[in-house]
């Protein structure tokens, strides 16, 4: 692989990695406050894609102007965020809160999550048809500039920009606000946090909401990059989940790092081993990292032992 080609694979790798990072944050946030793998997060992502698709299909004219394109993309972002947030919020209320009230074992949460995931993606398939659908044509996906010969397109910039903005916002939120303090407190010790006056239910609800907002936006961006279908959540969901674990589940910066790393691994895998080994390469990296750091790259204290 020449240096020239290196940049060719780096650019899409970073863009895809940013997308994975945004989804992975959804997993890691929920894991932080509930120690739960929110298996249904991939459906939040999928529904975010569908939400923006429905609205954009309705409002997009045949040939949007430049300003129109910008507004349409903004509309897509807002709608997908709202739908994703609402889905995650509802999911927590229906599928997890009753279990939490009862103090059910973790596995029960996991199965509930799997059930919710099955339900949601099949419901979406029923409601919106089972064929993939294209996002309306919002803009010509032209090359903006070339980076050492690699073409950088509008969609890739959009992906990266949105991901960076969301991650920066989240970082601020978690580290600077009262809600963020609640999230951190809950992640460290739920019981003590609740005794110290943290409204556990509310913090958990909002955590889901934030993860959902980001997951929904990721769904829209993914749809813009490829297409929308009721099964679109599965593969990116698994990879993002792996990314969260790779970075150290529960750690937000870890999720970003893990997502980026897996995006790169998946892209460089194509010239090195062949596209058909995409997922295998990602998992081999994951296992290799876990061998040496059993709690992930940035993973810290987790639970009491081992």
């Amino acid at each position, binding site marked *: 692989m020449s240096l020239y*080609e290196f940049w*060719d*694979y780096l650019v*899409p*790798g970073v*863009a*895809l990695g940013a997308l994975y990072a945004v989804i992975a944050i959804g997993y890691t946030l929920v894991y932080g406050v509930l120690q739960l793998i929110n298996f249904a997060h991939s459906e939040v992502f999928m529904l975010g894609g569908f939400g923006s698709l429905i609205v954009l299909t309705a409002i997009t004219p045949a040939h949007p102007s430049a300003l129109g394109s910008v507004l349409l993309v903004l509309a897509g972002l807002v709608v997908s965020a709202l739908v994703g947030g609402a889905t995650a919020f509802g999911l927590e209320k229906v599928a997890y809160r009753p279990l939490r009230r009862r103090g059910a074992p973790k596995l029960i949460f996991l199965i509930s999550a799997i059930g919710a995931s099955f339900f949601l993606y099949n419901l979406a398939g029923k409601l919106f048809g*089972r*064929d*993939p*659908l*294209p996002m309306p*044509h919002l803009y010509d*996906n032209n*090359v903006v500039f070339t980076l050492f010969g690699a*073409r950088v*397109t509008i969609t890739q910039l959009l992906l990266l920009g949105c991901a960076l903005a969301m991650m920066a916002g989240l970082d601020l939120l978690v580290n600077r606000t009262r809600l963020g303090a609640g999230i951190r407190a809950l992640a460290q010790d739920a019981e003590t946090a609740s005794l110290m006056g943290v409204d556990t239910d509310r913090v958990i609800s909002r955590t889901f909401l934030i993860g959902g907002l980001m997951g929904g936006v990721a769904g829209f961006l*993914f749809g813009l*990059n*490829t*297409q929308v*279908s009721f*099964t*679109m959540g*599965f*593969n*990116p969901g698994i*990879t993002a989940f792996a990314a969260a674990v790779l970075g150290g589940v529960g750690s937000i910066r870890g999720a970003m790092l893990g997502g980026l790393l897996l995006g790169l691994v*998946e*892209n460089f*895998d*194509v*010239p090195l081993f*062949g*596209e*058909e080994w*995409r997922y295998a390469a990602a998992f081999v990296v994951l296992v290799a990292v876990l061998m040496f750091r059993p709690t992930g790259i940035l993973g810290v204290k987790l639970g009491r032992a081992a």
Partner: protein
Amino acid sequence: MLRKRLLQTAAPLVVGLLALTGCTKGDDQASADGKKLFKIAYEGPLTGENAALGAHMENGVKLAIQQANAKGDLPFTLQYVPGDDTGSADQAPAAAQKIIDDDAVIATIGPAFSAPTKAVGQLYSQANLLALTASASSPSLTTLGFTSFLRGIPNDNAQGGGMAVYYAKKLKAKKVFLVDDKTEYGVGLSAVAENDLKKAGVQVVRESVPQKTPDYTAVATEAKNSGADALIYAGFYADAAPFAKKLKEAGFDKPKIASDGTNDKKFVELAGGAAEGWLLTCPCVDPTVEPGIKKFTEDYKAAFKVDPGTYSAESYDATNLVIEQLKALGTGATRESLLAAVKKADYKGLTKRYHFDEKGEFPDKAAFLYQVENGKIVYKGDINVLAGS
């Protein structure tokens, strides 16, 4: 403690099993108007990933049966039976067995896909029930010893070979970038194409991209960097569309050809402008363009409110072939006698002449070329003729 639980298991299980027993029903051999009833089944994907493709074929079968019944000159009544194998091998035995169990079923159109065919070919053979596929094109199917399996379509050798001929002879390509989707269909087809291209002295770069890959950018980049002067995609439209988009973004502007799994309106809808100029092959003719089958298209539209799709006309033909033979045999027809009759049949359908060699293979090799022009899939004609061979 454990035993108590075991006992608790007993009650619902017994009830369930008894309920199951109650479900097995006898067959009614006579229809409402007192005529003998024959059923024609279709086995293919009615749900799951490939449900859209399956629906095209199902409608073709249904239409043939409806028309035959409506004509009123049959000594028996025909009825349609669906069998949903979701296009996958693991669902196929139950679906096929359900068809076979129904004694009134006299023939099956299907299985639609190759992997399910491998899983159930023996079941059909054992039951002496004709399984006439209108779409399963893996060349190996007729070599596996199935005695009741017939293929009503040229196999992948024709299509893969057609692509190779077109590139080698017509475009004089030096290097072809060949992509399959890692399904049985895609891999089989691209193996044929690779073989034929190499025989013609064309260099081949082969890459496999599994279905539902989240991002095709990397492989599109590879296609461009490989320096190939033509590209083949063997797979289905749901994956071909994002691939086409990424190829365009990567700046790959060489000729591109895709197989019949991509030859669907949906490909153009999904890929938008990126689909423009793509060549598409199919062992099938276009029912909306080919003269002489306009009436079929109109009837189909009237019955199902949609245009016929890939393999609709072929399924319609296959069903009519069965009905014709059945009519000749009359009400005394059995699965065995129908199977024997169809094996020897020589039938002129809408799309082509149907006959079978001793293995049940379709002996004529034909593949047709289409191209996406201005957002429409336009029929070009026989690929071998176009390539000038």
